[in-house]
């Protein structure tokens, strides 16, 4: 603990006291009828608005969610101990909101925007952003066309994600859902270093505090905390804090989006959020529906994910955007984006459960992760057959689009043939070629955790794969070859890689690259 001198303490005390406003205002109050299970019923508060913050006499805040004829149901955003029947509750006349600013970058905050990483208060100017805000309308949007590089070869090549897209990551527990999203955040370091940061927000809902600490450490070690904010509502936090955490994250993302910058938000995970929402709804005595979720659980997710958007690149139009909070009106610029990567955890690969089907239908595509692929050593365990990106095609750089064009088809054919080959017997030459290529492509698409690949290197190795140039390399040697080849490329042919990155596929460059690959092959025979 830092030593603080007595005179400093008295200075702080004086400052605190000078802020104190002793005059009394007219307040609207109600009284607590009952409290328990994280909700309270209030008598009075006749004029309270839906979603308004109310404050108990001990300082605990709550949100009014049920306005009934004779009482108001509120969900507590803090501990319910210390609240008694008959306590006074007063309106704050503000809807639930969070204070957002540049100072949030690199910090860990809770749903209310308070720092929980022990690094002191959030610095810099802060702007009030409402938790619940309507998504931008059609006029203020643009089609998704800029790529968001995830650094995961299988995704960038076959399921490309664009800035402003919503791409679901879905799979059983322990299949690497979080890992893919963390990799994506780490891969944005390239843009941070280039001075065009993609601001990342990682929202942890209902996770163990140790897991969140682990994620933070990973990001710190990769240098990714410099452009990342973590919003954490841990398993021990009250259910309302858990189901509002994604909304708090979205509010932070919107601050970057509306000030003309790209942002990426990971919701980890929305199934837990739905469970927290179900808990609150049942306690508020709203009627349960399928799987006991309330009727508006679809709207809960659709309104959240709809806030991911690519904003039109015209400042004067963007400035008229609907539902802009007063506080950031002067900062609004066009061209920003908010990309969302919601995560859904399935039980025993059941994607036809209620929440998975809902979120699949809301998002612009999904990345399926499978346990048996994971166990077979295909990591990331993406099932490319059923994973899709509905808008990402326009969001690939040209070189990648050309190179990976046939990859998805090749892999689909390979999987079909693979089933055949398992019966044994002789295969004709064409089938064998398909299988050989497929096996090597599968090897290419594997990559270790926390090591995203820059797009130009992805282009180089996938070119070799899709053009069958790896057929002389034994399957087991493919990854070793890949590593050596990419090292040689960055040392000997950096100018070719630079061209790939720009989106070009120069013929002479490709010739040089192929010669280099052929030189290396004998080493791995």
């Amino acid at each position, binding site marked *: *603990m830092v030593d*603080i001198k007595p005179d400093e303490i008295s200075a702080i005390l004086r400052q*605190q006291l000078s802020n*104190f406003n002793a005059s009394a205002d007219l307040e*609207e109050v109600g009284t607590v009828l009952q409290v328990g299970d994280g909700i309270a019923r209030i008598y009075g*508060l006749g004029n309270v608005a839906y979603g308004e913050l109310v404050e108990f*006499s001990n300082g605990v805040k709550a949100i009014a969610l049920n306005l009934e004829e004779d009482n108001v149901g509120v969900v507590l955003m803090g501990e319910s101990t210390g609240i008694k029947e008959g306590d006074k509750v007063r309106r704050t006349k503000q809807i639930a909101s969070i204070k957002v600013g540049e100072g949030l970058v690199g910090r860990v905050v809770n749903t209310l925007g308070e*720092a929980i990483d022990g690094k*002191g208060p959030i610095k810099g100017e802060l702007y009030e952003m409402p938790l619940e805000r309507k998504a931008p309308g059609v006029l203020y949007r643009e089609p998704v066309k800029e790529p968001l590089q995830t650094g995961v070869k299988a995704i960038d090549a076959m399921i490309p994600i664009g800035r402003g897209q919503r791409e679901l990551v879905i799979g059983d527990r322990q299949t690497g859902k979080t890992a893919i999203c963390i990799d994506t955040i780490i891969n944005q370091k390239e843009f941070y270093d280039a001075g065009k940061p993609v601001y990342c927000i990682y929202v942890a809902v209902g996770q163990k505090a140790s897991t969140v600490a682990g994620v933070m450490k990973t990001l710190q070690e990769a240098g990714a905390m410099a452009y990342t904010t973590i919003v954490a509502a841990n398993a021990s936090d009250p259910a309302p804090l858990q189901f509002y955490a994604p909304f708090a994250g979205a509010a932070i993302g919107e601050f970057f989006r509306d000030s003309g910058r790209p942002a990426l938000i990971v919701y980890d995970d929305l199934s837990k959020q739905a469970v927290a929402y179900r808990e609150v709804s049942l306690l508020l005595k709203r009627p349960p529906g399928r799987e006991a979720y309330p009727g508006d659980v679809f709207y809960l997710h659709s309104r959240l994910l709809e806030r991911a958007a690519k904003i039109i690149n015209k400042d004067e139009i963007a400035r008229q955007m609907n539902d802009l909070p007063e506080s950031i009106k002067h900062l609004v610029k066009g061209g920003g984006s908010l990309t969302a990567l919601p995560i859904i955890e399935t039980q025993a690969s059941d994607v036809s459960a209620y929440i998975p089907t809902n979120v699949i239908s809301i998002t612009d595509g999904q990345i399926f992760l499978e346990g048996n692929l994971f166990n077979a050593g295909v990591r990331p365990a993406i099932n490319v057959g059923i994973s899709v990106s509905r808008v990402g095609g326009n969001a690939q750089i040209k070189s990648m689009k050309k190179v990976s064009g046939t990859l998805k088809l090749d892999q689909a054919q390979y999987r079909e043939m693979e089933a055949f080959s398992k019966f044994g017997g002789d295969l004709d030459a064409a089938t064998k070629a398909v299988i050989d290529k497929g096996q090597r492509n599968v090897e290419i698409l594997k990559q270790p955790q926390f090591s995203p690949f820059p797009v130009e290197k992805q282009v180089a190795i996938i070119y070799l794969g899709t053009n069958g140039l790896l057929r002389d390399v034994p399957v087991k040697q493919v990854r070793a070859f890949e590593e050596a080849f990419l090292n040689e490329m960055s040392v000997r042919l950096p100018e070719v890689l630079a061209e790939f990155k720009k989106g070009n596929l120069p013929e002479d460059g490709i010739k040089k690259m192929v010669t280099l690959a052929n030189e290396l092959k004998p080493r791995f025979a």
Partner: protein
Amino acid sequence: MQNPRLASRYAKALIDLAQELNQLEAVNTDMLYLHQVLKSSTDLVNLLKSPIIKADKKQKILAAVFEGRLSNTTFAFINLLVSKSRESALYEMTAEFTRQYMVLKNISKVKVTTAVPLDAATLEAIRQKVASQSTQEIVLESAVDPELIGGFVLETNGQLIDASVLRDLKDIKQQFSKNIYVSDLR
């Protein structure tokens, strides 16, 4: 309050009838009296709520308790409640009747709470001050709560002016507990 609509419907019916019969004031006094009695006697409330005691027995008991102390209209009202098995909501109905009566007469009740008892002159001064801010007739109720330490709390219709020392101290305490630096010092 299990069914808010129940109390308000019966209260409205009674108010309408009393107005028709020109007995509004008498019925209002009855209702205030009933409210007081029910508030001070939990036994009576339990009796009214008990599903085991038969209606005719309840009617007899109520007659024994209230015969001669209530106007005929009120007494008929109570008998009606018993015959409709709504006697359990009588307490809520008396409160609701008073509320509707005050709306009808444009009266608003203001409760002032202080740490020490106020003298009549101060109360009158407060009443006039409040009355000057409102178009309604003001009935001032006073209460004493030593925990306030000083200052006063004015309360009416779900609105509150809290100028007590207790509240100021609470606010200061909260301001300190919110401050990250200060909580680190402990």
